[in-house]
């Protein structure tokens, strides 16, 4: 599975747009990129997933450049409730149990008033 690198922590203020970048230089052709969010004392929650270009849902956008060696999670107009740890995961599009989630330490986003 592709190794990922993301900043340990980021600070922001309410109302700002936050971009968290994840590096995955050895991403494989059949790998997908997925982001999870974890609030304190809760289990992780799926945010968004993509393969290339841009994906947007009601929570976030995911930008993936043509070489796919990195990806950027964009959170528009963050609020205090967006304070959480954000995990970037990369792995192949195989069903079943042939592949497992590998969580790194993630990026702790702290949003201040």
């Amino acid at each position, binding site marked *: 599975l592709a190794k990922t690198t993301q900043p340990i922590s980021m600070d922001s203020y309410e109302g700002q747009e936050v971009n968290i970048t994840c590096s995955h230089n050895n991403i494989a052709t059949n790998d997908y990129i*997925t982001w999870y969010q974890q609030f304190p004392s809760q*289990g992780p929650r799926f945010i968004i997933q993509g393969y290339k270009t841009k994906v947007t849902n009601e929570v976030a956008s995911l930008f993936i450049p043509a070489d796919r060696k990195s990806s950027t999670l964009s959170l528009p107009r963050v609020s205090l409730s967006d304070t959480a740890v954000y995990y970037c995961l990369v792995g192949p599009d*195989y*069903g*079943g*149990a*042939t*592949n497992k*989630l590998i969580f790194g330490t993630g990026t702790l986003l702290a949003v201040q008033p």
Partner: protein
Amino acid sequence: NAGVTQTPKFQVLKTGQSMTLQCAQDMNHEYMSWYRQDPGMGLRLIHYSVGAGITDQGEVPNGYNVSRLNKREFSLRLESAAPSQTSVYFCASSAGGTGVSYEQYFGPGTRLTVT
């Protein structure tokens, strides 16, 4: 629709005691997993199941046993608890698989302390 539920929420054990962590999901998912999360760390896979009666080891299986008696429930048992097993335990379920491309639904966690 409760999603993934876990019991208990908190537990304190003495070294050598045993206990079972319970997990249940109401989404009719085939795949279920147990993870542990130590302070400041990401989650690590302990065991997983691809269906009733079928389980396999994950990254850190030593000291743990699991049981999947039916599609809905997946339990994690510590036979002889050790301080190194102090952690937060999360159960997850998924419709299509254990990997990245399938959304995993996580429970609220069980915070276990072994003294």
